[in-house]
């Protein structure tokens, strides 16, 4: 896949009478990390949800372009990887089984060794990878969530508080991951954490 850019213009989102987003615009492109900051309830997660296609905006547009071609909405999920606090993985399945499921759902083939290697790079020990996710600590679960966002090598990465629940080592792993993916991937990070905010080349601050 050639590089995918995402542009969003004048995004508004209302929940009932409450306006959470009031005219937000921006662009995601490979080689740049867009950081979305703001206090709790400012709409950071809402913005990422709209950009990912999970939510419709009350007003405004989101466009995905692969080179010169605009991608229709139903094709967006094929090019994005999303990790967010309200997006869990299946707790009855092991980490490997989860990743196997998500690769199959996307029509991809990956061996268990490849999946194990990804989990290993994210800091999930080999002996844990075949245990049900339900017995994991919150930090381990976060690593599996990140893995499911990355397993299909998406050209667009949307990370909502990616190092939440992670220790210092875990934070470093995510930082390295962002650095590594940056040249070929359009990345957006929604965060309250100043360490994560420091990854950004551009910032959107939501006042809330």
């Amino acid at each position, binding site marked *: 896949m050639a590089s995918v850019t995402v542009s969003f213009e004048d995004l508004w989102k209302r929940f009932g009478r409450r306006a959470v987003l009031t005219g937000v615009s921006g662009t995601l492109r490979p080689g740049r990390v867009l950081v979305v900051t703001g206090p709790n309830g400012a709409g950071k997660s809402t913005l990422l949800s709209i950009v990912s296609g999970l939510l*419709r905006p009350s007003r405004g547009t989101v466009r995905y372009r692969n080179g010169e071609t605009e991608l229709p909405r139903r094709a967006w999920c094929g090019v994005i990887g999303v990790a967010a606090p309200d997006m869990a993985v299946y707790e009855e399945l092991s980490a490997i089984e989860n990743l196997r499921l998500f690769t199959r759902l996307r029509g991809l083939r990956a061996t268990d060794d490849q999946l194990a290697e990804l989990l290993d790079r994210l800091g999930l020990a080999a002996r844990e990878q075949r245990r049900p996710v339900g017995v994991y600590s919150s930090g381990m679960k976060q690593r599996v969530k990140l893995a499911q966002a990355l397993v299909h090598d998406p050209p667009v990465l949307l990370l909502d508080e990616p190092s939440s629940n992670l220790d210092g080592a875990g934070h470093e792993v995510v930082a390295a991951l962002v650095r590594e993916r940056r040249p070929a991937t359009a990345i957006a990070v929604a965060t309250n954490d100043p360490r994560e905010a420091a990854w950004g080349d551009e910032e959107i601050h939501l006042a809330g």
Partner: protein
Amino acid sequence: MTRLSNILVWILGAWLAVVCWAAFHYAPTAQGFVGESARIVFFHVPQAWVAVVAFCVNLVASIRYLRTRNPLDDARAAAAAGLGLLFSILATATGSIFAKVMWGSFWNWDPREVSIAILLLVYAAYFALRQSVADEERRGTLAAAYAVLAFVTMPFLVFVVPRIYWSLHPDTIINTSGTIKMESRMLQVLLGSVAGFTGLFAWLYSLNVRLARIALRRRQREEG
């Protein structure tokens, strides 16, 4: 309200008044029924007809909403469903009264009786669903999806099941042999009543939609 629609409403009122009078004084007594009980047909049948018409209007508005996500289409669907619920309650009630007079019990599990009662259940379920969703757009989408699903299953109840079962219902006026089996004055009153009740539905529906339009416009102004 325009002058023309004002006039039409007055005409509707007069029409319905005439229908009520004609139901008792113009139409002759039907044969084969207990006393004057058959006269309920001039009210019962139009109510059932309107309940079905409302269902169709709800379907069209629901499909439009699924395509446009225009809140006014959702309001139209809800308005039609509300009136459909009202008229299916009335149809069930008048049908039960007739059943009590004719056969001694309010409910006989006759397939047509059951059909209109199930339509009532569909409307009630539709509103239960609407009540349980806080987000407006999602409420409209889910309600519209349910309305479409209900519409595609209803023909089975209305058309298939009665053919499998023997029915207590008086022979339908328009039946499979294509002949009309009703005395002409009775037919006139019945058709007049159907037209009147349809007009009543149209008027109540248009009032509801106007109210919804005003409320939407006011909200849009407040939100800027």
